[in-house]
């Protein structure tokens, strides 16, 4: 169980929480649709 806890702690440490209000950037391509989706 000691080994398991260590692994769990590392995994938690790697996950950096996003700041409040963070909006992930849109994917670079394809771009926005101007008229309608085909």
């Amino acid at each position: 169980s000691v080994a398991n806890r260590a692994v769990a702690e590392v995994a938690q440490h790697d996950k950096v929480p996003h700041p409040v209000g963070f909006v992930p950037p849109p994917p670079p391509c394809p771009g926005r649709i101007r008229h309608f989706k085909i």
Partner: protein
Amino acid sequence: APAAPPAPLGCDDPESEAAAEVAVSYINDNIHHGYYFALNRIENIRVLPQGLNNDIIFLELELLETTCHILNPTPLENCTVRSFMDHAVEGDCDIKMQRLDGKLSVLASKCHSHADSSKDLIKVCPDCPLLTNLSNTEVLTTVTAALNHYNSKTADAYLKLIEIGRAKIQYHPAHVVFSEFAVAATNCSAAEAKVNVENCQLLPDDQSNFGFCTATMVTRPSQDLTVDCKLYGHQVSTPDPGVFYCPPGQDTA
């Protein structure tokens, strides 16, 4: 240490949009039949640096057909994109461009246009008319009848057909043929054309007066024909009127 390569351009970056604007303008300047196209989406962009202030750009664009025929002098920004319900036509284009000292130019382009799926349209609008082949007999009959009808009613210049741009047929609840076609004024009045239509010739390029007509012919349950033509007024540059029509689905390079 060498400088890190620049971050790749996103499709919505201002530089991408500037390149797309140049590309769409180039494509529309080189359309010889049908309608102008407007940008719907930048699908992809790749930039290959060639040296100082010199890049090659590969663009993939999705375009949509507008309601402005290429003979229509309306600026593209004022042209309406055809709605999905009007059985839209889209264009997929691959463009190779050069950006030299900040100036963009098109090196090569290849576009393929095709109508949207009929099945998708029918799902949303079961009774909507669908695009049909421009050489369809009913379409040719409608266009001929409509132009004859218009010429018989006007005292102005006798109009000749330049090309059929679009045609749709609706089967339910009535049988209706919708068509759109470009026309040009001749050197004859409609009255002169009645005497000898063979003498009526299109005006020279520098005096050309083009126009655009829409016609609707109902054949069931009753018969009816309506036609509306508008002349654009005198224009300087003209396309080659030698070919009648160019249906969607053709590659152009």
